[in-house]
């Protein structure tokens, strides 16, 4: 708890120095001054916006590479090893069974850590964007907020990298029996994120308790077409994802869990009874079942995550320095990709690789649109940072 208490002390001291003023901008400041104050070079908000979108982009590209080059091959290896284990049991070869299951464990760990890397990187990116929106209400000085934002981003980078390395580092040189160095670093990254988010929460509470200052923030005042499109589309995606998840939980979840157990039992009892046909039937059913579970969970998760992303990006449209037509186009592309991916993931069971290809294309559309918006934000930072000449040089953002 040493670092946390240190941050809290800094935050307390600096907040006291600024008399809890939320944004130290003169009363006669122009809207440009407000924007510069809230999005100054290496300010906490700018760090969190650029870092957050960067994390989401890297996480999505990693996910796409994983889906195309690793996921299906890995699933195939898991299926092959499971079949080999069942056939080894059928042949009465107990040592071979254990070897094949060790292989299954290794493949599942490989898959699990890749999925966790993808999910945590994107999740932390979302959290960074949310915290960026809330920065004007965090009652600490800019120096303290910037330091906490750095801690957050370092933790958000360390956790997924650590998780990714778990499969490769294993327990080498580890002081613990079950947890390796990569896991320890991943957990440390998680702790940094946890502490920095907690400090931001303290800042929000302090603002509420100590100040009734009305915060003016251009981000929340925006009602542009692209922003409204992303907010409405995002909310619709979240609602659809929830409805799909509720339907899956009510209709399929318990049935799938029961099938999982009964098929494995059928494999095992078939092997004990030396019934090859029964084992092979159970293996085929088990593969089909895993596919059904995977596509339903992926469609549910991606629909909600893309919905959240669209809503978040809707708030940041004032920072996307592109003209209105381009902003609407990128918003439309992001929403199109966000619909295509979950819908065609669901159709993969009926239409196989064709649907899988369209789903991957959907993911690519989201990545391209997100990259375009990220570049738009970079352009905006450039226009803010350029020497102020008295000419309204931020017109490009309007």
């Amino acid at each position: 708890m040493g670092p946390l208490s240190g941050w809290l002390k800094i935050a307390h001291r600096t907040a006291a120095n600024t008399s809890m003023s939320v944004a130290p901008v003169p009363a006669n400041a122009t809207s440009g001054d407000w924007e510069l104050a809230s999005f100054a070079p290496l300010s906490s908000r700018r760090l969190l916006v650029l870092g957050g979108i960067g994390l989401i982009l890297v996480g999505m590209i990693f996910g796409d590479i994983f889906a195309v080059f690793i996921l299906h091959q890995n699933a195939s290896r898991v299926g092959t090893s499971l079949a080999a284990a069942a056939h080894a049991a059928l042949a009465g070869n107990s040592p071979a069974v254990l070897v094949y299951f060790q292989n299954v464990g290794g493949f599942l760990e490989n898959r699990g850590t890749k999925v966790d890397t993808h999910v945590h990187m994107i999740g932390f990116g979302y959290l960074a964007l949310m915290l960026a929106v809330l920065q004007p209400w965090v009652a600490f000085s800019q120096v303290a907020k910037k330091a906490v934002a750095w801690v957050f981003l370092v933790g958000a980078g360390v956790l997924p990298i650590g998780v990714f390395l778990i499969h490769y580092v294993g327990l080498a040189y580890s002081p613990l029996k079950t947890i390796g160095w990569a896991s320890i670093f991943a957990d440390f990254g998680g702790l940094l994120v946890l502490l920095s988010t907690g400090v931001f929460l303290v800042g929000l509470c302090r603002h509420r308790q100590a100040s009734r200052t009305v915060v003016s923030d251009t981000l929340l005042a925006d009602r542009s077409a692209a922003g409204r499109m992303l907010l409405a589309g995002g909310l619709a995606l979240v609602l659809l994802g929830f409805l799909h998840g509720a339907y899956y939980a009510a209709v399929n979840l318990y049935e799938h869990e029961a099938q999982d157990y009964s098929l494995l039992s059928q494999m095992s009892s078939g092997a004990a009874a030396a019934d090859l046909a029964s084992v092979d039937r159970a293996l085929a059913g088990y593969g089909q079942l895993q596919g059904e579970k995977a596509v339903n969970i992926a469609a549910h998760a991606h629909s909600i995550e893309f919905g959240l992303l669209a809503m978040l990006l809707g708030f940041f449209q004032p920072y996307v320095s592109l003209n209105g037509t381009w902003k609407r186009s990128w918003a439309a592309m992001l929403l199109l990709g966000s619909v295509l991916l979950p819908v065609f993931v669901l159709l993969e069971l009926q239409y196989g690789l064709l649907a899988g290809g369209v789903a991957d294309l959907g993911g690519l559309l989201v990545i391209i649109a997100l990259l375009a918006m990220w570049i738009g934000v970079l352009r905006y930072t450039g226009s803010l940072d350029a020497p102020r000449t008295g000419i309204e040089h931020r017109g490009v953002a309007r």
Partner: protein
Amino acid sequence: MSEARRLLVLGGIALALWGMSYGLWYAVFAEHQALNNIGGSLAAGFSAAAQRDSGAASAALSQYHEAKYIYDRQVDVHGHWIGLAMLLIILGIGFDRVAFSKRSQFLLALGLFLGAVIFPLGVLLQTVSHGPGPRAVAIAGSAMIIASLAGSVWGFARSGTSA
């Protein structure tokens, strides 16, 4: 900041912290043991089948079934608490656009917050009891979220048409 927005933003961040703390605790103290239990019991089941010991195979697979049931829910709880927390924060940021009275906004926010807490809690309670109680809690929580979310969508839509 209105009461509804405050509840969603502060409640959302608190819930995210809770979900992360739960995930950190789970990763450090429980996950590796759970995975070892799942893998070990599955391998033991097939190994017993290879030795033509149906009873031991069945017992090991039952152990696998129970361990997998608990593991799936514990991971789901972590993901859903944090995911719902993020939804609360995002909705909180833009909740003034929901074109209802302050009281209706607060009731919607309360429904979202309580649902976000209760739904994963019901899922977690299923690891303790397989009875209908925890399922009912989870269903009630998810129904609160869906109903409040649908109300929020309606409010956003009203805001769009009245703008």
